[in-house]
């Protein structure tokens, strides 16, 4: 990341783009493929038009309460990244794709901290005083029930969960910023020792913090945060100019095989 000062990144603003949940994962992997083939780094920002439970790359499908998902109309996708189950629908999701920095700069925790720094600057602009999370050790089945090095907290409550995948010299990190709460949460759609009250006490939303919950406002703040923190300039881009999708072992179906 030492050479980021004059780097131009692609900005893919999809806050208002209506995509199927599985398409979101395909789109993120598509960006990874592009950067691996020499395209500029990218920041993609998006929302989810339907409640969707995303599972970590290696998370057992048995963690999902499929009957509850069917009953509540919750879609399920598998992320290419690590970590645990996360319920999308009232969040803003970011996806950063960039060449893996050389040497120690490329260590997992170092990359997390660099991106966290940009997110923290961005969130500050909407009045959210976030900090990098504590480390609770290996995650349990629900992302927002614990904190690891990638995550952000306000006080002791998690406001953003993030995860990575590294392939072919490229790192993809995406994460979810809690804007509001849905009527349901992960405790309704997972089979896990995760209770609603415990989860609510462990997390906080921008709405509860009195900040804007308009994803456009938050997205604009994050863009400015990346520019300021990492010394970047963004150029608007679309996925259409990206190239071929390259899906590696990830379900592209709307309902992932569990």
């Amino acid at each position, binding site marked *: 990341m030492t050479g980021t000062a004059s780097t131009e990144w692609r900005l893919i603003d999809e806050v208002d783009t209506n995509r199927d949940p599985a398409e979101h994962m395909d789109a993120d992997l598509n960006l990874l493929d592009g950067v691996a083939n020499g395209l500029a780094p990218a920041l993609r920002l998006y929302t989810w038009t339907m409640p969707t439970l995303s599972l*970590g790359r290696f998370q057992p499908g048995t963690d999902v309460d499929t009957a509850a998902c069917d009953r509540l109309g919750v879609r399920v996708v598998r992320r290419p990244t690590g970590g645990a189950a996360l319920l999308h629908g009232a969040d803003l999701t970011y996806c950063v794709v960039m060449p893996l920095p050389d040497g120690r700069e490329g*260590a997992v925790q170092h990359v997390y901290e660099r991106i966290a720094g940009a997110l923290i600057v961005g969130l500050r602009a909407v009045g959210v005083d976030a900090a990098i999370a504590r480390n609770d050790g*290996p*995650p349990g089945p629900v992302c927002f029930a614990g904190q690891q*090095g990638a995550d952000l907290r306000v006080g002791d409550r998690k406001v953003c969960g993030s995860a990575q995948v590294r392939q072919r010299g490229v790192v993809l990190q995406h994460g979810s910023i809690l804007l509001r709460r849905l009527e349901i949460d992960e405790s309704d759609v997972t089979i896990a020792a995760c209770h609603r009250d415990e989860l609510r006490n462990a997390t906080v939303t921008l709405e509860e913090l009195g900040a804007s919950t308009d994803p456009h406002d938050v997205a604009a703040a994050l863009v400015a945060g990346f520019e300021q923190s990492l010394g970047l300039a963004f150029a608007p881009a679309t996925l259409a100019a990206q190239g071929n999708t390259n899906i590696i072992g990830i379900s592209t179906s709307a309902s992932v095989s569990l």
Partner: protein
Amino acid sequence: MMEFPEGLKYSKEHEWVAVDGGRARVGITDYAQDALGDIVYVQLPAVGLAVAADATCAEVESTKSVSDIYAPASGTVVEVNDSLNDAPETLNQDPYGAGWIFTLELNDPSEVDALLDAAAYKALVESA
């Protein structure tokens, strides 16, 4: 203190290779395990899988980050370290010993000659 055992070969992707005749045992280096952090899952290759040099052969998850492990030479996977299914943290604790990941039957043992020796790998890591 980072370890760079003599007698092993190393890839630029931070795998080590221990050659024994036509076979090569493969793991990740001390530097790699330190950069990855606490490893919580290892996706082992299937025995019998034929791999090209530099192809993805396994995956590891550490601190919510999934990383590819590459084949340092072409060959066929003939053995995997099943104990990592229950104890993935072994990669952190003993990367050059009990944390080995898989063994390849090499297509061409001379491919390994192109890998780095301990001194060259140490220099690579220290220059980064």
